[in-house]
């Protein structure tokens, strides 16, 4: 029995007439690599946005590790232990890689916030993440001068610096080359082995099938199937929704 990391009940969100989430009830497992797949426009990104408090759901509930976070602000969700990346990769363009990562440090209390941003321990930790993601040579480079792939790695470094228990990745392989894709896949497995839970939205099926423990399939704003890769691969509804068979 694995316990639940993130659970939603009847999550619904409509944009004008477009129903992006339609009573979605999903449960992701703590300590595992979960994947959330589904055709374009099936509501995966909207699901992330609602869960992280960036947009407010019309109705429904979100529970994280037994705590109701339905109405929590995004920074409160982050403090609860959920970090996320964005489909369109968001970094601070006019900040160096180091500052991008340091910005994710959680300062303790009022006094902690007044301390210097470049404390030795933090800088070492930030460099550690940049090194682990293979971009330590860009430490002083402004994010806007980096390639797309480098920016994606930098975004991930920042999120990891905030030390989230659960990481939501929105299309980590989107627009990156095969070598980088392998690196990201390997890193996810490594970080998972170190105790981090993942929920990954991804279109690259090879990647999804190779790194996930548990897969949830979305169609039109709600889950239509879930299970381990072996089951999902041969599920007819999935094939129907996904491949238009």
């Amino acid at each position, binding site marked *: 029995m694995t316990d639940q990391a993130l659970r939603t009940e009847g999550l619904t969100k409509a944009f004008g007439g477009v129903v992006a989430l339609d009573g979605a009830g999903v449960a992701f497992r703590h300590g595992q690599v979960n994947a959330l797949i589904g055709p374009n426009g099936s509501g995966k990104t909207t699901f992330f946005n609602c869960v992280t408090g960036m947009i407010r759901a019309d109705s429904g509930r979100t529970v994280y590790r037994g705590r109701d976070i339905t109405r929590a602000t995004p920074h409160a969700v982050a403090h609860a232990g959920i970090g996320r990346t964005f489909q369109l990769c968001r970094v*601070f363009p006019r900040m160096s890689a180091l*500052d991008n990562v340091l*910005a994710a440090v959680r300062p303790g209390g009022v006094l902690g916030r007044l301390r210097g941003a470049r404390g030795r321990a933090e800088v070492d930790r930030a460099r550690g993440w940049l090194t682990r993601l293979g971009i330590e*040579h860009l430490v002083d480079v402004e994010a806007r001068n980096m390639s797309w792939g480098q920016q994606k790695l930098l975004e991930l470094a920042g999120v990891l610096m905030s030390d989230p228990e659960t990481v939501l990745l929105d299309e980590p392989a989107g*627009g990156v080359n095969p070598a980088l894709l392998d690196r990201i896949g390997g890193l996810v497995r490594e970080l998972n082995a170190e105790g981090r839970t993942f929920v990954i939205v991804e279109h690259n099926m090879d990647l999804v099938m190779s790194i996930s423990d548990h897969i949830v399939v979305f169609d039109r704003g709600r889950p239509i199937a879930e299970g381990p890769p072996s089951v999902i691969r041969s599920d007819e509804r999935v094939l129907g929704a996904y491949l238009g068979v």
Partner: protein
Amino acid sequence: MPSASDPSSTTTIRRPTVTVARAGRVVLLVVLVAAVVSFPSLAPNPYILSAGILVLNYALLSTSWNFVGGFTGYISLGHGALAGLGAYGTGLLVTRAGLPSFLALGVAALVVAALAVPIGYAALRVRGASFVIVSIALVLVLLLVFQSWASFTGGSRGLTVPRPFPDLLRPEHHRVFWFLFAGLLALALLVWWLIDRSRFGLGLKAIREDEDKAESLGIPTFAYKLVVFVVSAGFTAAAGGLYALWFGDLDPVFQFSILTGSYLVLMALLGGVRTLFGPLLGALVVGTALEYFKVEYGGTPLHLVATGLLLALVVLFMPDGVLPAVAAMLDRFRPAQQSIREVTAAELREQRESGVRAETELAATRPGTPSTRERA
């Protein structure tokens, strides 16, 4: 994990430029302090000294403005009104409540800082152009209040504030206030510098870059904006109060004017909002120009045209301000310096590795153009 050699090799590369920059900064600071200390004795007449005080006042105001504008990127045109509140607050506390002048100034600054909490609470919810408009509304509302509530504020006839040192002759009066303004400016610069290097400051800059992203990383963006707005309002109001005690005569039309707010923005933008001394430099240029135009062309609106032109030029050609533009220009000379300098083995290795890696990265990640990265 960072290896022991890794961070040190990068430091080796940076050290020479860092020392030069630091030395440059120290020299600049010494020159600045010397100029401030000697100006009252060098000024040929009290008129020049009082014009200097006006410029210093602008420097103080635009530095105070830059707590919000520079760190968070929220452009407020309403700071003139916060200064006006500080000025009237100080004046009224002296004339109506009989408080000693400088106690009145302190209390007024604190009261305006407290008022900034509800003002900021309302205004900081909107971003971009909407925030600019809300800040303009603040000025207009306060102008109406202070003009029409004549029994209390003196209305459009204005308010006369008694001088704190009635025994001083005019030149001495100016001299004392020159140093008071300089002292308050130094304090504002010190606080800005402290915030700039703090975690709080990095959070504010993250807000300027991408507010939603900052929030998703766990930065309580609204609280951060509110706190820095309150600090900014406090300094702005203190500047206004000092002006009231110095000038002794308040006119609501001048105190609550969008023009004042716009000057502050122009000065800060001109000098550079991301730099500590940017607003000060901008105030030096624009403030001096304003005073000059006032003398040469008196009541004509020509100085408005000149100001508008200057603003347009800066926004078009130096959107980051003059200081950063100059820095960028100096940067072009840097490679030459580097090739003369001796390079250590560690640096060579670092440069070679990073060069190779950057190239493979670049070649490898090129397919990720904006068209392919979005939903297929």
